[in-house]
């Protein structure tokens, strides 16, 4: 408390012209004020001032809390919108055939929902903007009233010690200079509070401008005017603008492709005829309808000759491979037979080991060309050769 008043007085005297008599008078006056203030009302003014400051800044705190919350919501919405745009772009790129009318209709309805959500968000942002402006106005009024009250308190505090000390000690010889010193001290206190209020106002205005910039960027009806010059933190806004451009492009394509999808192919026409409980999944469907004869088996897979070939058990192939290391070669040959897609896994290939050779017995795919069979034999022989030390 004493130190605070001392600083105030020193600050006030620092504003006066530095003459020797003025300084001595100011020092005496300051000491007297400190003694009187410490005797009469210890620690009254600072408590009141802290409460006043907190009360004056309460609307600003509420507004800043609201601003932070809204910015967080806006960021989440931007992320959701970007993901949605990516999914739409992927779907749109693959819907060139126009054969999925249901998907296109679902995307169009989802687009309308998105537009409604964007309009609601814009209205809410306008409300928040109004709220923020009102909070700033209220804060400015509170600060003005607070500063006026502080000035009045300071006047009263200066008038009281002057009246109490006047009978005991006569006034100094330079009343004009002392008055000037008092005026400078009061101006210093007022300047201090003014600077604090000004700093608060500047911070508020900066926050308000930033919030207005975010609002302007995210408002859909303001896309056509020239974009504001890039500022710090505008990368997120640029990203959502790119997503909005993609959205517009996807909407245009969807509206163009909607008639083609409705004209549709067989899949779209057959969709309502699914049995109950068999709602179509994403893959286009051409299942035969109920009551229609099942699709005949494919000719390539079930032709008469092919079926006969695959239903007749393939003959075992037995080769004798000469090797210098039968044990090592057997592992290599077995590994090769178990990984070659031309060799049947069941029945399993059999490798018998003798003194200087391997006897390999296995079965191959039906209709395997002789060239492929020869290639397989070459691989087996090469494996034996490679395993020989």
């Amino acid at each position: 408390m004493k130190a605070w008043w001392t600083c105030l007085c020193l600050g006030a005297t620092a504003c006066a012209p530095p003459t020797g008599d003025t300084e001595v008078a100011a020092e005496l006056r300051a000491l007297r004020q400190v003694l009187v203030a410490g005797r009469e009302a210890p620690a009254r003014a600072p408590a009141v001032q802290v409460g006043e400051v907190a009360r004056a800044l309460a609307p600003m705190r509420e507004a800043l809390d609201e601003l932070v919350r809204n910015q967080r919501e806006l960021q989440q919405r931007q992320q959701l919108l970007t993901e949605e745009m990516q999914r739409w772009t992927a779907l749109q790129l693959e819907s060139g055939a126009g054969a999925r009318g249901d998907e296109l209709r679902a995307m169009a309805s989802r687009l309308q929902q998105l537009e409604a959500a964007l309009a609601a968000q814009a209205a809410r942002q306008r409300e928040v903007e109004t709220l923020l402006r009102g909070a700033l106005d209220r804060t400015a009024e509170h600060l003005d009233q607070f500063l006026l009250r502080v000035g009045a308190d300071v006047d009263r505090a200066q008038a009281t010690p002057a009246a109490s000390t006047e009978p005991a000690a006569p006034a100094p010889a330079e009343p004009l200079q002392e008055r000037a010193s008092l005026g400078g001290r009061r101006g210093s206190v007022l300047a201090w509070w003014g600077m604090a209020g000004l700093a608060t106002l500047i911070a508020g205005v900066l926050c308000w401008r930033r919030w207005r910039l975010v609002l302007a960027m995210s408002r859909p009806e303001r896309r056509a005017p020239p974009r504001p010059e890039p500022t710090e933190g505008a990368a997120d806004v640029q990203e959502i603008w790119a997503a909005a451009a993609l959205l517009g492009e996807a909407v245009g394509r969807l509206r163009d492709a909607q008639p083609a999808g409705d004209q549709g192919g067989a899949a779209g026409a057959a969709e309502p005829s699914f049995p109950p409980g068999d709602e179509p999944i994403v893959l286009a469907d051409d299942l035969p309808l109920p009551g229609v004869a099942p699709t005949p088996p494919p000719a390539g897979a079930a032709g008469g000759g092919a079926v006969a070939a695959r239903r007749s058990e393939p003959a075992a192939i037995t080769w004798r491979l000469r090797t210098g290391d039968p044990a090592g070669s057997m592992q290599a040959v077995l590994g090769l037979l178990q990984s070659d897609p031309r060799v049947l896994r069941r029945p399993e290939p059999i490798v018998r080991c003798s003194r200087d050779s391997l006897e390999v017995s296995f079965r191959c795919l039906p209709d395997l060309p002789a060239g492929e069979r020869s290639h397989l034999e070459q691989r087996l022989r090469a494996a034996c050769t490679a395993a020989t030390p």
Partner: protein
Amino acid sequence: MPLQLALRRPPRGGSTRLQFGRTEVVLEATRGGYALLWLEGRQARRFALGLGPTSELSVALAAPRLPVRVAARDTLALAPRARLRGYVQVPLVPTISCRDHAGVHRLAEFPPAELEPEWDDREGTVWRCVSPFHVRYPIPGSEPRVTVAVWLANPTETIASPAYLPLVLADADLRPVRGGVGARPRRLTWNGQGLVATAAGAASVTR
């Protein structure tokens, strides 16, 4: 993913390259014929080709010609009178075909290692592969695979837990769908011993 890519015949001394997935095909015109190099990861195969004056080569992703038994990586279990829908994937077979005035001929097939042939006393020779039971399409991945939507139904009063899904695929079934390859959906019904393919009307199970 295109199902078929034309492999142009290069001029003398030149070469033509094709790349799909991790496979690369190089066709070189040599003295007296052509040389075809098939590179797939660490494996490579070389063919010496003699082509007629009107022969045209192409590289296609073909369906496995034998029936396929798809073993689901997840254990499948269907309660009595329940049904289950999902997707399984079957590897496609890269095939080099030659077209000329006599028709289309398969020059070479390169079945992937995921397809394993085996003999079954009842069905004959079949392919066997393993696939996760997907619930969403498209399925990410760069390997050439066909995605088949399957409807599984259990009209019996016992729990059905099939070991594999029997599928028969043909080239005519394949079609590019949303960045992948799809085939027409299959409806399989549990008959007490295994899943059998049924028509759409016969497989409906009232709930």
